């Protein structure tokens, strides 16, 4: 359901999941209206940093009214967020973008793919599709993994690591190719651009529907500034050029519709 406000959130908990990866649970009004694949803008308090930081929603707890963000410390803003403690206030712009089409994929063989810090939003998808035929492919750099055990509560899990220390050596596509018996109807994915390009190609070659979540430098988060666009195959209905707004029309797109 559409919800768009500045929420005065309250930190419920924060924990470090692995090197530079944190899990932050915030109580906020928008939590109960969020869907998996949407994101929020978190405002740093420091005046050194003015813009909100777009962070994908890992999962929400509608009963508790909480939003969980699992993020990587990448700069000044996220560094500040990693110091937030229980009870602290945090301003967030909720909820942004459109999520994954979870209702359309029920009853199908669903593959979720997450690479690195693209893994967290897929957890919310796995959770909402619990009981469906869901296979989660999680790609990490090495054995310093996060969230993989939580995925096991909702889906079958296949691990790949770049250094081969756990699971299949390589990326999520290598792991998927190793599962010769698996015939997915749909892939939903989030991760670095080279991985998403490979997924788009893999899906095309195997005639699989694919939805991918994109990322770009963002300013307003609400579709006004046109900072975060992505090239599109056809003319976009809003822009009337071959560019679409990741924050507003995305971040989740049908892989066939975007030129990545």
């Amino acid at each position, binding site marked *: 359901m559409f919800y768009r406000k500045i929420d005065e959130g309250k930190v419920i908990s924060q924990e470090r999941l692995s090197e530079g990866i944190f899990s932050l649970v915030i109580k906020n009004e928008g939590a109960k209206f969020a869907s998996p694949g949407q994101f929020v803008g978190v405002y740093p308090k420091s005046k050194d940093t*003015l813009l909100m930081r777009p962070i994908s929603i890992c999962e929400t707890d509608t009963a508790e009214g909480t939003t969980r963000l699992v993020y990587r410390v990448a700069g000044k803003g996220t560094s500040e967020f990693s110091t937030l403690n229980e009870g602290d206030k945090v301003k967030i712009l909720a909820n942004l973008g459109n999520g994954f089409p979870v209702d359309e994929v029920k009853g199908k063989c669903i593959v979720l793919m997450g690479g690195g810090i693209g893994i967290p939003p897929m957890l919310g998808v796995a959770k909402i599709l619990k009981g469906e035929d869901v296979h989660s492919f999680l790609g990490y750099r090495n054995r310093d993994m996060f969230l993989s055990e939580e995925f096991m509560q909702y889906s079958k899990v296949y691990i790949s690591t770049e250094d081969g220390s756990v699971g299949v050596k390589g990326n999520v596509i290598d792991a998927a190719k190793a599962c010769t018996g698996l015939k997915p109807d749909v892939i939903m994915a989030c991760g670095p651009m080279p991985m998403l390009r490979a997924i788009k190609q893999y899906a095309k070659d195997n005639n699989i529907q694919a939805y991918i979540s994109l990322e770009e430098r963002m*300013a307003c988060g*609400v579709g006004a*500034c046109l900072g975060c666009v992505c090239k599109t195959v056809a003319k976009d209905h809003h822009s009337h*050029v071959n560019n679409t707004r990741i924050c507003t029309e995305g971040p989740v797109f049908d892989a066939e519709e975007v030129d990545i």
Partner: protein
Amino acid sequence: MNTKVTIAGVEFKNPVMTASGTFGSGMEYSQFVDLNRLGAVVTKGVSNIPWEGNPTPRVAEVYGGMLNAIGLQNPGVDVMIERDLPFLAKYDTKVIVNVCGKSVEDYLETVEKLNDTAVDMYEINVSCPNVKEGAIAFGQKADNLYNITDRIKKVSKKPIIMKLSPNVTDITEMAKAAEAAGSDAISLINTITGMKIDIERRRFVLANKTGGMSGPAIKPVAVRMVYQCAKAVKIPIIGMGGIMTGEDAVEFLMAGASAVAVGAANFINPYATMDVVDGIEKYMRTHNVSDINEIIGCV
């Protein structure tokens, strides 16, 4: 308490406008703010045909502000007339359309198409630093600025505001050229050309290499330029550059601006325009200013 200001015969309920490019055509921010409370909505720049804009990354945060190199992506004037202007017509606010182009003919075509709409004024963008052709090329030489102003003025059925670039040696020369060619008002400043380098990747952060800087850090430069132009010309000035609060806006008014525009602040705080409207009124109450016009150019 009077907050009304008049520019080129157009009356604004208050001096607070949106800065072009930071507010779309009002639709996106209407979910946060009441557009009826704005003096005017100034739209994102529009050209005769749709423009793709620049490659990404298009935006970057810098200390005290941001850089952007959107490159004036826009759906073209026909879409604006069919979609955006009817939306804005539902609100009790003035509408100023920002017009951009690669050639003088582009500007003229856009202005002519808008002439029969209910738009109140045009703001002519001759100062965007992010496109290679047109735009800033018209705004960095006084002769060029005079010529384009003169040609637009001859076809325009609405008052025009020439938007000036700060990326010049002497902005008052540009202000004088715009005035001499018949511009009804001027607005300033557009963004200041900047650059950011990613030292880890040894690359420019923006795909365009350079971008226009906006945000609170540029405010003192903007206030100074508004003051200089106010001394140099008689036509009204719309001041902008780093306005975050009502106090910031009052500074611009005192420097000589008849109205102000809120830009990057919208990204930092979606309610920024309302905060500025409220902040100006609060200043007027606490300082016993009964008419906003009393403080325009008072320093």
